[in-house]
């Protein structure tokens, strides 16, 4: 049951009425119980095993977290370390086992003819990468003494809260838990923002992302040597924007859902393609993952407290791990290394004291990120090579409307600079109107998007991670 499916919309509608009636009558405690049941039922609708795995994972993490305070004001270290190890093993088995198995067999086979590792028929629980990181953040923050362990019920809800369960944002305990634990009545604090986010999600996900995928990304990436170099360049740009629309559209949607439940989620995107450097890009793209990597990988490694060289090494390791988090494949690792190298180059650049005008820095950053996306999209290294080989082909007759795409991309860049103010003004404007006008606007927007977009249901790219 995906967030953009009619089933979800209908169930969610019934649910929020129950949820708010329970809140008005019994307060946030009752709402939490409903949320916990709904979250598990939601996950159960994908596969009952997923729900079971999540439950066991949560109980282990929460149980270990409760063992951390030693009762005398001090803290034990072993539950935290054990929890981190167990969580990573759990993630490793489900997400990386078959990757390591195939890689190991590939490298072993010349040496040992009979090399064999059992193939496990594992179902990758959707969202496992996200809730594992959220659980680790919780465990470590208790290990560091930043907060006391949560109650079982609150902890379970923190790790299963259905708007964030499948693909983030990866919440910190200090962001989501206080909102769960609150004794004060919840409110739909920003309904107008929620409507706009819903509309924005539809535009980005159902229309733009699907349109880019169908007319540009899928055909060109499927057969790069059949296209002119300009078309290949356009397809990479199209993919960059498709990814952004897909994932940020998804984030807008779940942020709106959480707002309707009286919750506020951390921000995950801030117009990443306006970034003027690679490190700035990562402060704007998938923000909750970047800061997780920063706080739990980069800084523990030493961050920038050591020598200059050590700092670069730490950055490279952090970026490579971030790449590997995205998927069990060498192309993701190389993608991570690419960004790590980018950060190092940028640091060298800064050390020399070289500066570029903002626009040129932005263009270079965008090109760099796009080359990265090429590896992100590719199934294997061979297809990356094939794509680069295609860039030398200036003879094939272009078959796609590439001038149109360039205009569209320029519009996307322009819109990115205006997005923030548009949303703010839109909310102010909406706030003045009666509720039924908002409904009509929402429906008209939705119908327009449906009419403009290619038919069919499109999956979310980031659910696969």
């Amino acid at each position: 049951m995906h967030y953009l499916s009619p089933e979800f919309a209908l169930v969610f509608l019934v649910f929020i009425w129950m949820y708010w009636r329970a809140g008005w009558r019994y307060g946030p405690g009752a709402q939490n119980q409903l949320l916990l049941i709904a979250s598990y039922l939601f996950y159960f609708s994908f596969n009952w095993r997923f729900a079971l795995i999540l439950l066991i994972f949560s109980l282990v993490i929460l149980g270990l977290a409760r063992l951390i305070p030693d009762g005398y004001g001090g803290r034990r270290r072993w539950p935290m370390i054990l929890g981190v190890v167990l969580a990573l093993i759990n993630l490793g088995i489900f997400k990386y086992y078959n990757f390591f198995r195939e890689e190991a067999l590939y490298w072993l086979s010349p040496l040992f003819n009979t090399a064999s590792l059992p193939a496990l028929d594992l179902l990758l629980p959707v969202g496992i990468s996200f809730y594992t990181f959220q659980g680790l953040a919780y465990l470590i923050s208790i290990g560091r003494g930043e907060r006391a362990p949560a109650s079982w019920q609150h902890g379970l809800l923190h790790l299963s809260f259905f708007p964030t369960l499948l693909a983030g944002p990866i919440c910190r305990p200090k962001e989501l838990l206080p909102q769960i634990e609150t004794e004060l009545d919840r409110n739909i604090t920003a309904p107008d923002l929620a409507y706009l986010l819903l509309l924005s999600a539809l535009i980005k996900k159902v229309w733009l992302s699907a349109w880019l995928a169908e007319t540009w990304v899928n055909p060109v990436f499927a057969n790069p040597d059949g296209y002119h170099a300009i078309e290949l360049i356009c397809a990479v740009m199209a993919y960059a924007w498709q990814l952004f629309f897909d994932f940020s559209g998804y984030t807008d949607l779940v942020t709106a859902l959480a707002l309707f439940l009286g919750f506020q989620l951390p921000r995950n995107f801030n117009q990443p393609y306006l970034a003027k450097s690679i490190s700035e890009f990562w402060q704007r793209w998938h923000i909750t993952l970047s800061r997780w990597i920063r706080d739990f990988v980069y800084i523990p490694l030493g961050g920038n407290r050591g020598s200059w060289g050590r700092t670069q090494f730490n950055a490279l390791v952090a970026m490579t791990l971030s790449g590997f988090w995205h998927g069990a494949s060498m192309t993701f690792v190389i993608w991570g290394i690419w960004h790590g190298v980018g950060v190092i180059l940028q640091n060298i650049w800064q050390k020399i004291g070289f500066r570029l005008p903002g626009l040129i820095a932005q263009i270079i950053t965008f090109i760099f990120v796009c080359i990265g996306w090429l590896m992100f999209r590719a199934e294997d290294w061979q297809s990356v090579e094939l794509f680069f080989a295609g860039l030398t082909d200036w003879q094939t007759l272009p078959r796609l409307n590439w001038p149109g795409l360039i205009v569209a991309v320029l519009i996307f860049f322009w819109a990115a600079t205006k997005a923030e103010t548009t949303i703010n003004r839109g909310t102010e404007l909406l706030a003045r109107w009666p509720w039924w006008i908002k409904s009509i606007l929402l429906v008209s927007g939705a119908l327009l998007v449906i009419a403009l977009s290619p038919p069919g249901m499109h999956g979310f790219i980031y659910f696969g991670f």
Partner: protein
Amino acid sequence: MYADEKDLRGLYAITLAAFLLLSLKLGALVQYFQQTHHIFLDVNPSAASADWFHLTDEIETARQSVESIQLQANQRLIKAGQIIALGDAAIPQPEIPACPVANNQCPQPIANVIDTPIKTVETKTETPAIHSPTGDTKPIDTAASVLPMADPNLSHLPAIDTPIELQAGDKVLLVGDSMMQGLGPHIVSSLSRNNGINTIDMSRHSTGLAYPHYYDWPNTILQKLQSEKINLLIIFIGANDTWDIVINGRYTGFGNPKWIEVYSERVENIILTAKAYNVRVIWLGAPPMGREKMMDRVPVLNQIFESAAAKYPGVVRYVPTASSLSSDGKTFSKFIELPTRGKVMVRTDDGVHFTANGQRLLAQLALSQLVLHPFDKKLAAKNNLSVLSQSSSSSMSSMASESSASSTQIEIQTVALETPQAVEVKSTAKTETDSLPIIQENQE
């Protein structure tokens, strides 16, 4: 405690929006539920009148005119883009065959030639007749442009599945659902890289033959064949067709005689279209599925595909996929044993789609049905035979009986991947007979 006024208004707004959307899009919603959850069969609603609200004709015409303006602008921009990218080379040169005045034996337009009944079918020369740039023309080898079934004089010949041979510059059309979307790219890149063959991948997820008013494949294929010269059509569907279909506004349960009749009609419709345009068809059977509701139903679909294909030998070849993707050739298996790599995962967790390995195996299976020739892109560019451009010069496959004997030595291109023992690569050489091969002609 009482309801907060602001919260209540928020809930009202979202509820009203949902109801408005629901009522405007009820038809689509009913269809969606029917397709995904296989419900409403018992209720048996009248599917045609499910929308509470219909677009009036005026709105529909307005929509269509906007669409055509869009299409036109799009075409113009494509043209502009071609000229910017390639300069004058992008402007198509009118191909007027130079006709020496002294000699009155100028070839007729090829289109006319096809209709001319020809008695002799043996090709006289092996060299394809192409207008040489110098201007002197050979008479077009008319025999090469005739299809056996197009010629009434040949109807007495036994119908035998003939080899499907493709030449550089030929065009292949891929049709199918999300399964085809998985293996399409592998076919596209292999054919283009190794054989210089253009492939148009029209596959589209969530489609099939069960819901023509959602996506009408027979008509889409017809339009494509009308607008472009296609040599081979590869179809791979079925993942979305194990459901009830709407017949005369009523849902009819999967597998009913009526269901089978209607579905077979749609399958044959596609085949007849292909036949009318002299296009060979490879119909890939649906693989065994790992989902409960689909498991028992896929064989029914395959039965329909197979018997439809049997009616038109020489046009359609039905290729079952189960043997490539299943350890016992019948039931769903997520992993299969490959001779060199051991157990390899071929299916994804959803029980329907394929992993990259599975896609490659299937692409290999499809490609192994073809007789292909290695192709050197650089050499072709040198000879000014731009196969990838749309104004590709016509290449002919004049393969007559004497040349078919030599085709046993033709290298059969396969994807660089180990063949599982289960897949027995069907050598096209084996199926060859002395009967007439398919002879095709590009007429651009």
